[in-house]
């Protein structure tokens, strides 16, 4: 379970260009939920997602994931949360372009502290799960946008995290491919019970989720199922 209490995030604090991106955001997300975070550009939804993914810090408030308070952790433990509890999918895929699909999917396994017997097989299984096993040996710079996003999803799920965070996952894809990717997220949520949180400004995507959290000017203005 995820619990955010009064999270405040300020960019460039005490500088002329200081900007308060999150103004005391509080919410809870249960395990196995499919949640959409919506809002206009600059509303703070991506900032919130990055805080949830432990790739960005916050000034005040409390973030608890599976009973672990994130702020008091060492860098190693932060990394471990990113590695084991969170799978991240980005709009621009965030792949190492000259690596093959398989190599990309194996990255979280390389940094895992868990003893994993057959990393390669596990990565292949993840690729199979997203339907691109045959592309395993293909460099990512030779893949289409939809294929790249599937590689990113395979990488996000390979370490079996409890939570998948997606930042505009269909933003760079055509509508048909976007639908396919959305189906994949729904499948991961319903069939495997993973918590999926999707940041989007596409209402069609948001409508498919169990709950929609709307952010405006750094505050949650709507939190409804």
């Amino acid at each position: 379970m995820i619990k955010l209490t009064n999270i405040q995030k300020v960019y460039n604090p005490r500088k002329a260009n200081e900007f308060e991106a999150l103004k005391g955001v509080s919410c809870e997300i249960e395990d196995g939920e499919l949640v959409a975070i919506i809002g206009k550009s600059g509303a703070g939804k991506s900032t919130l997602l990055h805080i949830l993914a432990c790739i960005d810090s916050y000034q005040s408030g409390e973030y608890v994931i599976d009973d672990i308070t994130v702020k008091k952790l060492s860098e190693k433990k932060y990394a471990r949360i990113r590695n084991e509890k969170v799978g991240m999918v980005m709009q621009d895929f965030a792949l190492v372009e000259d690596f093959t699909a398989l190599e990309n999917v194996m990255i979280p396994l390389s940094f895992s502290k868990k003893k994993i017997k057959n990393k390669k097989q596990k990565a292949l299984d993840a690729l199979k799960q997203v339907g691109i096993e045959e592309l395993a040996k293909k460099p990512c710079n030779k893949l289409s946008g939809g294929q790249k996003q599937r590689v990113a999803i395979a990488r996000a799920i390979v370490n079996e995290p409890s939570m998948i965070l997606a930042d505009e996952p269909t933003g760079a894809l055509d509508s048909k491919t976007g639908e396919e990717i959305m189906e994949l997220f729904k499948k991961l949520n319903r069939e495997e019970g993973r918590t999926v949180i999707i940041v989007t400004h596409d209402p069609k995507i948001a409508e498919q989720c169990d709950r929609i959290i709307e952010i405006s000017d750094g505050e949650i203005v709507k939190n409804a199922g």
Partner: protein
Amino acid sequence: MKYLKYGFAQFCRSFSLYVIMIAELAAIMLALNIAIGSYNSRNMLYKPFEQYLTRDGWFIRSAGIDKPTEAENDKLYEIIDTLEGEYEIISFYSSTVSAEAGDLRLTIVNDDIYNLLCIPLEEGDYSEAVVTLNTDFGLGDTVRLGSTELKISGVLTENTYVPDINNYNIDMDVTKFYNVFQSNVQLVQLNEGEKPTPIMILPQSAVQSEIDKNLNHGIYQSFYRLVVCRTELTEQQREHNADILAENSMEIVYMPFSKINKRSEIYVNESLQKVIPIIVCVSVIAIFGILCCCSINVSRSMRNNAVLYVCGATQKDMRIINAVSDFLVVSVSLVISIAVLKIITLNGADNSIGLVLGNNNILVTTVFVISVFIITQIVSYLVFKKKTIRSMLVSGGF
């Protein structure tokens, strides 16, 4: 293993950029080693004589062009006896022995000098006696001088130096204490144009009894002597000695050690003094190039590093991956410069161009390599310092 894998991937990815860095580093390391090799080569000649040249003393002989007579030598010793201070007189001896393999010229040098000889050897060591290369005499062979058996423990390289104190020059430096010997060309300075007789260099103590028995009967003393003062002289004593020698300038030819030493030091440091400014300039340009390449590369690698971070890497992991990549650059440069130096030494070109590679080459190269590596890490650190993972993720990658 993961660091090596991702570091190597980064190295390969940025190879086109790294090529410039590698070429610059290899060129500097090569230039640095050649300069040090040249210094070593000159210092190698100076070292055995330094112990004398830094004291009061003279390079001296009786006046006269031909071999000094016994009376002339007696006169020389008489003059030396009138000098203030305690003096040791050092001379070299020579002889020729005939063996099955042919004639062999012996150069018998003072033990203190022999023990400090570090002229490069093709094989073996200086433990007993060394011979010139490309002769019928080899490692382990023995020859007899009177009743003394002399065993060859080392073989000199081609184009080598042989100690000799029979050369005098008004601009004398330590190089005049040697002859250059090329067995397959000619003995430079001596016997020019003739096929040279191979030479064995050995310490005086090995054949002292033979010298005592056979001096002037098969074993001959050098015309010149090194007169070394074993006591500290006052300025007054020095002046007194200079006056005595000047008064006897019709009887003797001499050169004070102080003059030889001064010229020798100039000779030893000359190569470094010439090359160092060039190396410093090239290094400054190269380090600027390295800084640019390194910062560009770190910036270009940022996004991929951020991807690893998102997947569970720590910032420390990212720094290590960058360090591995930089280490590979420095290592490849090092390997290239070592390979070039190896090619030079394999062909014997190092001796021909007067290079002696020693431990100081390793030391200076190591210091240089570590310095460059540290610079690259500082650049990486500074570039990374002001970046957030979020900004790295949106930065242009590949």
